[in-house]
């Protein structure tokens, strides 16, 4: 039987989806605008006899995630921009130790303490390996409450499949707004595939001790380990890039936007159509791996692009790399917690197309 459609905040939908995806250990520390996520976990995880800990800091929470992941749990932490910066050391360690976990960033505006309004200025940090060392991890960007829930299930799957942290990069608007959402059925954590690499239970099973660490003091060994991980990155790039396209064939100009910006761009597209201007939208769903192949194909067809962001221009660098000089790429962005309006984006479209 299909589940009933529920009205929920994005933050709550991510939390509910995580529980249903079999998250058995959540560690968090409060920060606006993601607090409903931690609150939902506090309310529901203990009932299900799962682990919920409000840690003493963000640094502590991500290291608890490291421990739970090493013990084989489906585990998650969530925060917002300044808190995610604090977690970067732990994310780097988890990447170095090949530990699957889910990290949710309900991003706000920065830099520094910045403001609590929505922002997309954490794109570089999320997609370039925000901590130290040579690494990447998958980054998923939902555009709606429904997709926030769907991508949360997906994040746990991908984390386990590729043995890496997966980040859900939302923003304060996606987290705070309410929309209808239908959840997929709950997964019994006991039914999930075993993780033979995990630590623990050696005394019961007498199996060989597993060591989980990111340390390699012999340079040649470390190089081999990083190279092996980058081979996996190539495989991920080949199969995991996701995107949505709207009206790209007819479009004179294709907007590129993710999350909230994509919703605004979609509105601008509707306004443009009423004025007889055909524009399209290319929406990356995975920010890493960035769907560069498809964007390159569109550039080869002679399309021009407008990157719409809630930042001073970060994703535009990936758009330019994908387009590789074959097409013009323009930018429109707001920052500091301001959300671009459909009307502003339309005005920019008209300016570029001289219409």
């Amino acid at each position: 039987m299909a589940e009933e459609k529920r009205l929920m905040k994005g933050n709550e939908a991510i939390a509910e989806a995580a529980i249903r995806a079999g998250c058995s250990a959540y560690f968090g520390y409060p920060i606006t605008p993601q607090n409903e996520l931690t609150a939902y976990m506090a309310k529901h995880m203990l009932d299900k006899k799962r682990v919920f800990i409000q840690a003493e800091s963000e640094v502590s929470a991500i290291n608890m995630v490291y421990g739970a992941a090493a013990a084989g749990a489906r585990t998650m932490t969530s925060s917002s921009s300044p808190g995610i910066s604090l977690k970067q050391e732990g994310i780097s360690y988890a990447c170095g130790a090949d530990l699957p976990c889910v990290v949710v960033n309900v991003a706000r505006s920065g830099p520094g303490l910045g403001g609590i309004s929505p922002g997309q200025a954490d794109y570089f940090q999320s997609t370039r390996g925000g901590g130290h060392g040579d690494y990447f991890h998958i980054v998923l960007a939902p555009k709606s409450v429904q997709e926030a829930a769907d991508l949360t299930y997906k994040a746990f799957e991908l984390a386990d499949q590729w043995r890496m942290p997966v980040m859900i990069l939302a923003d304060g608007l996606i987290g705070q707004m309410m929309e209808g959402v239908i959840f997929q059925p709950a997964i019994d954590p006991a039914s999930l595939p075993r993780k033979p690499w995990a630590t623990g239970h050696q005394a019961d099973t007498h199996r060989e001790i597993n060591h989980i660490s990111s340390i390699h003091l012999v340079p040649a060994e470390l190089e081999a380990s990083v190279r092996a991980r980058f081979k996996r990155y190539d495989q991920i790039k080949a199969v995991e890039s996701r995107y949505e396209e709207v009206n790209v064939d007819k479009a004179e100009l294709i907007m590129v936007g993710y999350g909230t910006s994509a919703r605004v761009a979609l509105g601008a597209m509707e306004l443009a159509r009423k004025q007889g201007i055909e524009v399209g939208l290319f929406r990356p769903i995975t920010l890493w791996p960035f769907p560069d192949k498809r964007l390159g194909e569109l550039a080869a067809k002679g399309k021009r692009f407008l990157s719409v962001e809630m930042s001073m221009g970060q994703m535009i660098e990936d758009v330019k790399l994908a387009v590789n000089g074959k097409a013009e790429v323009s930018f429109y962005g707001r920052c500091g917690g301001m959300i671009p309006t459909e009307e502003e984006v339309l005005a920019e479209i008209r300016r570029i197309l001289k219409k």
Partner: protein
Amino acid sequence: MTEKTFMAGFGGQGIISLGQLWVYCGMKEGKEVTFFPFYGAEKRGGVARASVIVSDHEIASPLVTAPDSAVVMNMDSLPLCEEVLKEGGTLLINSSLVKVETRRKDAKVVKIPCNELAEQIGEVKIANMVMMGALSKVTGAVKLDKLEAVLKTFFPESKHKFIPMNLKAIEAGMAAVK
């Protein structure tokens, strides 16, 4: 049909509940909905605002920038609503607290004495429900025919005794629209 509504009042007037119940009912009536509260350092007495959209189609931007209708629950909200309302849009004004005329001559103005009507029913706190009844009557975007069931899930069991009063407020709001 797409009805974009901007709602504003002071913290404590039930703007957030009004917006949530509006979209909850819309969703139960088969519509696509979004509700986005302007979160910040709001507190009782500060300005509370919400962007609310109900549509037959997929909703693009959840941020309402040129609303078809605007709900003005107190004096401070009037300039906010006047600034954003689209050309020829509808201003629904709580005339119990807003005693001045709007400067938006293009707007369709609907005045509802929400506080008085709520007090007549017995509780000034349900002034927001009176306004929701008026909003339904004026826009037709949400019929509110599933409100009773929605209130049963929205309120905890201990508050169910207040449901009949809320339904009366909705009716009063609908009736107040001439």
